[in-house]
């Protein structure tokens, strides 16, 4: 039987094998560099296009002349309002869900099933949440197209990610700490509340902030449930305004596209830049929390 050599022995003089290895390595690195380049191009283009529009007036005043001039103040305020309510609703629910999944998942098959379901929900595209919110909150519960319906939909949208990160963060709690707590005679609940949750908190907050950032940038969940386009006044936070739609940045951008020519291009780019900065600020916050937590425990 003939044996075929996969690699030819190195010839004298030139080390071909080393050269090939070097070439392969460079080929691989090229891809990572390309991705990095892509990110910076994206950011650079949007900054370049939007920077000239950004001014204090643009950020704080409402649109004028049928959306064709003025600022995007109400949209920013509306986005922040949506975020606030989503944060308040989704954080406790998500942490509770994650705790249930991590703590009460002894029966492995049920746990695996639940985990897979939540993971599937986390990857479900935003438009499905939008349709669901429309069917359930807007029509069935008769919230109407309103801030409240937007909160509920965005909460559902960001919940799976929070649940998963909470579960993952609780899993990183060292066994020693749990055992130590139990050996002290703390109940399971006390161990969780006093030891595991504080330990996992940075991880959980990272997840919460990241999912909020995702929710802040998505137009689809609020498209049918919470949004209004023509906003010339600032939304206030009151019981009545809960049942009224709000203007927000992603929807402003989506509508700005759908009705070409109404909103001048420089306003669109200014809004794009604002939205990106808002989302990236949230991300930077998450990265900072993560880095500081890592430093504290290592």
């Amino acid at each position, binding site marked *: 039987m003939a044996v075929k050599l996969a690699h030819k022995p190195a010839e004298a003089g030139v080390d071909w094998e080393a050269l090939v290895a070097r070439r392969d390595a460079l080929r691989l690195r090229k891809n990572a560099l390309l*991705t990095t380049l892509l990110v910076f191009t994206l950011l650079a283009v949007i900054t370049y296009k939007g920077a000239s529009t950004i001014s204090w007036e643009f950020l704080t005043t409402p649109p004028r002349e049928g959306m064709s001039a003025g600022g995007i103040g109400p949209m920013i305020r509306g986005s922040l309002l949506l975020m606030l309510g989503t944060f308040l609703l989704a954080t406790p629910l998500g942490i509770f869900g994650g705790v249930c999944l991590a703590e009460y998942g002894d029966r492995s098959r049920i746990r695996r099933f639940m985990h897979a379901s939540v993971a599937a929900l986390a990857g479900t595209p935003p438009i499905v949440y939008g349709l669901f919110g429309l069917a359930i909150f807007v029509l069935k519960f008769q919230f109407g197209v309103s801030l409240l319906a937007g909160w509920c939909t965005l909460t559902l949208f960001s919940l799976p990610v929070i649940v998963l990160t909470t579960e993952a963060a609780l899993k990183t709690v060292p066994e020693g700490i749990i055992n130590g707590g139990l050996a002290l005679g703390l109940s399971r609940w006390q161990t969780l509340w006093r030891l595991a949750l504080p330990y996992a908190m940075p991880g959980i907050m990272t997840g919460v902030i990241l999912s909020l950032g995702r929710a802040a940038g998505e137009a689809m969940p609020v498209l049918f449930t919470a949004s209004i386009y023509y906003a010339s006044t600032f939304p206030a936070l009151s019981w009545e305004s809960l049942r009224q739609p709000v203007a927000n940045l992603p929807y402003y951008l989506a509508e700005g596209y759908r009705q070409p020519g109404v909103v001048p291009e420089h306003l669109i780019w200014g809004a794009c830049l604002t939205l990106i900065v808002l*989302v990236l600020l949230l*991300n930077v916050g998450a990265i900072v929390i993560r880095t500081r937590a890592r430093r504290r425990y290592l």
Partner: protein
Amino acid sequence: MRAPERAKQGERFLLLVFAMPTYTGKTMELAWEPDVSFEPQFAPYQFRLRLVRAPEGVDVEPIEIDLRQHPKGCITLPVWKAYSQEEWLKGYLFELEAIPTTSTTWATLQQFLMSDWAPTILYPRFGMLPLLLASLLITTLAILFATPLGLAAAVYLSEQASPRVREWFKPILEVLAAIPTVVLGYFGVVMITPALQKLFGEALQLSSGRGLLATALMMTVFILPTIISLSEDALRAVPNSLREGAEALGFTHAGRIRLVILPAAKSGLIAAVLLAVARVMGETMIVWILSGGTPTMPDFSSPTAALGTLVKPTRAIPDTIAIEMGNVELESPHYGYPFLLGLIIINLLGFAYRKRAQFQL
């Protein structure tokens, strides 16, 4: 005559026919023809027109017309004039009956797959094949572009890069993943569509560069972070003993990756790609902005046609939902279709995820 789009089983519509007093002829004609949007072969109902009652003193043969067999036609009736509102009601009385054909489901399915998408005309058509094909094409192209790039980057990160490079790269990926899809769409409008129009605009008379290719390119950017981080996780899950074993056998670096590490991480990599497929299929904003919004049947019969298919406007499922949802009247049957499309998307996703779970467990 407008056929009832919401005709229920055996529903009847009554039709009064009379002549105005100023009419001078001896006979009058009752003519019908279908709306341009009417496709009898897809109609789930059989429409029948029947004379119920003739006015007093007028003698006519009984009339019964199958409108499916005679979608266009004309009958002549002896004239009968009405002078007052009470007399109008004594004119010819016809009955239009909608009888469900035996193969309603089949007809709907046929229309679903074979017709085109025109939901707002008189006889709306919900053929979604073009939409489905556009969605599938966009997904295929985006995966074809993103997988080699993302996989290679992931291999670099997990097998070659120093921990410091990895630490730097992670936030960069997170930033890319965090950029809102609306913004990605606009980015495509300034960077990709003008380039496409410059390349093919004159040859194909493009009004813009929006279409399958532009969408797929931006989708590539959209799923790149997903593919990279998930594949990197999968690669890092490969136990070090395998790497060392391969090294001990004298494999080159590339051989180690290709023959040992990639096969070992296979299921995780497939899951990464499937997850990316699911995300692309459901992503709405990018398609909405970049697809052009015109439902078109893909045509690959000739190179020119194929190129046209790639760069001319199209429309996929998710942006259809977004567009239709904005202007459907609630409770109309039309309202149900976006939900149906949503369900199809969820089913596709479910399939992808089931596979993913199978690979992971």
